[in-house]
């Protein structure tokens, strides 16, 4: 991750061009294009039914490509699905675990599917189970694991083959807050160790906390893409809350600052809506008010949340949108 800078196209580990997909006449994906850079955490944020799962299924070769081009880890999903499969790891949306196999058997089965040689397999399984702290549970059947443990086991399984890209489909759906934050730590750890992460989520804070870049997807289209900061800044709706000794005079003092869109009275003093990055504008506001001889008792800058971003771009709340 860096600011600006020239990048070679070889840095893109996932390249999607004009992807379309229909089920029995229903257009689930309507022409999306995006790239994921090697080493980043990239999120698809959108409500259920937006086309996230369809896209992830095409990228992981589970659905045949209908329209467009998709390259994952340098291989075309339509022409070389086998090479793509070797290069990726997947953590499926629901708990995709055989209830009656033990933790170790689950890992062993996966390692054998990918033909990892015996000694290496054994070492990798031990290593991965240690990473997700399931070492002590290796002989436990998966049906006896808690929700968080199941998810961790699936992450361990997805990483067993040392994939270049790890796909996570709604990795924390249905987990409690505490477990979710631990999952985020694991995902960050995985990414820090060099694995590119592609995740889909309909949790705002998840996309916000984890991602280097986000694409918001709705009705089968990418609506906007960028870093969480860019997306929030692009809204241009930072709000400065200002409490002063003389609110009436403040309006005059702030005349001429172009970025200020409106000033209204609120319970927390004056709320000043700013049409640009508020953190750059705030010092000037404080300076002007100070120079006008008005005492400031409190200053507060509120950045828009991903919720605000989503509502702004889709025109509706993400919560409670059914599939």
């Amino acid at each position, binding site marked *: 991750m860096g600011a600006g800078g020239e990048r070679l196209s070889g840095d893109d580990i996932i390249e999607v061009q004009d992807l379309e997909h229909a089920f029995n006449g229903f257009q689930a994906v309507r022409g999306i294009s995006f790239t994921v850079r090697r080493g980043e955490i990239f999120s698809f944020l959108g409500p259920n039914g937006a086309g996230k*799962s369809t896209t992830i*299924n095409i990228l*992981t*070769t*589970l*659905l*045949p490509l209908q329209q467009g081009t998709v390259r994952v880890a340098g291989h075309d999903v339509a022409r070389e699905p*086998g090479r793509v*499969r*070797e290069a*990726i790891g*997947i953590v*499926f949306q*629901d708990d*995709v*675990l*055989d209830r*009656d*196999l033990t933790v170790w*058997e689950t890992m062993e*089965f*996966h390692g*054998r*599917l*990918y*033909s990892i040689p015996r000694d290496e397999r054994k070492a990798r399984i031990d290593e991965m189970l240690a990473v997700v702290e399931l070492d002590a549970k290796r002989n436990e059947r998966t049906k006896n694991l808690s929700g968080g443990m199941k998810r961790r086991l699936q992450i361990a399984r997805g990483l067993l083959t040392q994939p270049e890209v790890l796909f996570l489909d709604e990795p924390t759906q249905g987990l409690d807050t505490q477990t979710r934050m631990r999952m985020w730590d694991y995902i960050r750890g995985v990414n820090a160790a060099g694995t590119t992460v592609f995740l889909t989520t309909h949790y705002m804070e998840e996309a916000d906390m984890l991602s280097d870049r986000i694409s918001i997807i709705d009705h089968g289209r990418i609506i906007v893409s960028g870093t969480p900061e860019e997306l929030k800044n692009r809204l241009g709706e930072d709000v400065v809350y200002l409490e002063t000794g003389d609110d009436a005079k403040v309006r005059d003092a702030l005349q001429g600052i172009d970025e200020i869109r409106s000033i209204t009275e609120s319970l927390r003093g004056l709320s000043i809506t700013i049409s640009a990055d508020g953190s750059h504008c705030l010092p000037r506001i404080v300076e002007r008010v100070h120079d006008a001889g008005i005492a400031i008792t409190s200053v507060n800058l509120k950045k828009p949340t991903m919720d605000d971003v989503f509502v702004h771009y889709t025109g509706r709340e993400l919560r409670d949108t059914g599939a």
Partner: protein
Amino acid sequence: MAWEFLTVYWREMIRFTRFRTQLLSSLLQPALWMAFFGVAMSSNFNRFASSVPPPAGVVPVDYLTFMAAGVIAMTTLFTSLFGGISLLFDKNWGLMREMLASPMPRTHIMLGISLSGMTKSFIQVAIIMAFGLFLGVQFFPGYSPARVVVSILGIFLFVGVFSLGFLLFSSTISMRLESPEGLQGIITLLTLPLFFVSNALYPIQAFPPLLQDLSIYNPLTHLVTGVRYFALGSEFFVVGTNYSYTPADILLSFAYLVAFAAVMYAVAHRTFQKAVVT
């Protein structure tokens, strides 16, 4: 050489041994057929059959021994027809995706399932033969130890090819269906004609002509023929009927089963290559 199908086989066998009740019932069921149906029917059939004298020089065989071959065939048929059901569960629980998204060739899924289904049938057949001895089934009459070994291998060969055909059939259906209930329905619909329009329980010589013709196309008939040939010899007399098999008959039956399995393989192969499971 790719051996990943052994991975699928390994998991299937773990499942087979792990569900104790399922394991026990699958082993007990054929024994119960022998113990109740077999013993009850044989005492009836033997009463009638004793009124028809066997031709000179032909070995008379009692009904229980005759039927034991049918029970071997029936058990193999049931086990094989249900063999694909774990694919349905894999599909419904999302587990199939793990295999489909892996680099393992898809044909290995059906090979692993088939191999494990064959293993289960072999175990069951061995149990039926052992339990049959205990009940008084007279397989391998007067055979030398070497001939017994060859005969057992012959029976396993027939059972193996037959079960392969039906396991591939069952796998195909499972991949195409959505629900276990659907598979159950198809199996129930198939087992009745397959089982009763065959020589498993009684000689087909007494059938009406149409059923006789149909039974010739029934793979189960050819399996039973093979098992009886190896277990009872080329010439025997039972339930008032004289049986006489030539090696050519047996080869033809075997070829029929091989052809059946080959067709089922082709169909299953196509189904697995095209399968989309998400």
